[in-house]
């Protein structure tokens, strides 16, 4: 009972703040709403007993990315600046398409009967996660781990190169 209330609360928060994120005319505020959405998601992960994931969600997503976004907002626009919204026609068309899509997906989801598994759940303690990440046996994720680390490295270098102030503007006109 408790958990259901909790879930409805979180779900409500996620939906409301999502809508606010995409509709708020003040960008900084939108970023804060996004933060709330992400924290609520983390809460859902806690509910599902994936504690490590929830922690990552909080630190990387809520902590890292949102801060990054807020910084960039501050760098590129004034706080008081109001975002220009799309014109009525575009909004309407997008809402229509999105509504139809949502309807279609929801219909599909509700029509399908999922059979919950009765198997005992694998624990996901930090130890488990750590072991799985460096294991290359079945249920091991060493390769994706390596790949993602290279990706991160590449993104790091890429971000630096792209954002660097060009001394000579020969390449990027």
């Amino acid at each position, binding site marked *: 009972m408790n*958990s259901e209330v909790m879930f409805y609360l979180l779900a409500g928060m996620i939906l409301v703040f999502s809508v606010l994120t995409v509709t708020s005319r003040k960008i900084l505020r939108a970023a804060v709403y996004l933060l709330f959405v*992400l924290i609520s998601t983390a809460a859902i992960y806690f509910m599902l007993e994936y504690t490590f994931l929830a922690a990552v969600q909080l630190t990387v997503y809520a902590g890292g990315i949102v801060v990054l976004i807020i910084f960039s907002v501050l760098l590129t626009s004034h706080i008081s600046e109001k975002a220009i919204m799309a014109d009525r026609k575009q909004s309407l068309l997008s809402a229509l398409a999105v509504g139809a899509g949502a309807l279609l997906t929801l219909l599909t989801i509700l029509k399908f009967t999922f059979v919950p598994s009765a198997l005992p759940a694998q624990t996901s303690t930090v130890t488990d996660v750590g072991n799985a990440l460096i294991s290359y046996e079945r249920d091991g994720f060493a390769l994706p781990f390596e790949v993602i680390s290279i990706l991160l490295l590449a*993104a790091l270098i890429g971000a630096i190169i792209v*954002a660097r102030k060009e001394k000579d503007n020969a390449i990027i006109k």
Partner: protein
Amino acid sequence: MTGSIPLQYFLIISTLMFFIGIYGFLTRKNLITMLMSIELILNSVNINFVAFNKYLYPQNLQGHFFTLIIIAIAAAEAAVAIAIIINIYRNFRSIDVDNVDELKF
């Protein structure tokens, strides 16, 4: 802890969040807010993965790790995207997506 909440509920939330994100992507003119919409989309996908993992295949952690990796990718993507946005801002003095239409023919 999940008690009697059916899987569908999670899916409904994630679906709605996903489409809200898409709506934002389609209507926001500011590149940063578009980026935020994308984060919403990614997040909704994460919820899906986690919920499926929990309900349908609790015996292993595939969905869990997928989510983990997606978060990592999202971080990388955000970093690069913001770098690009800042660069665009430098060149165009604007991050309005309508002004950045060099992509055409």
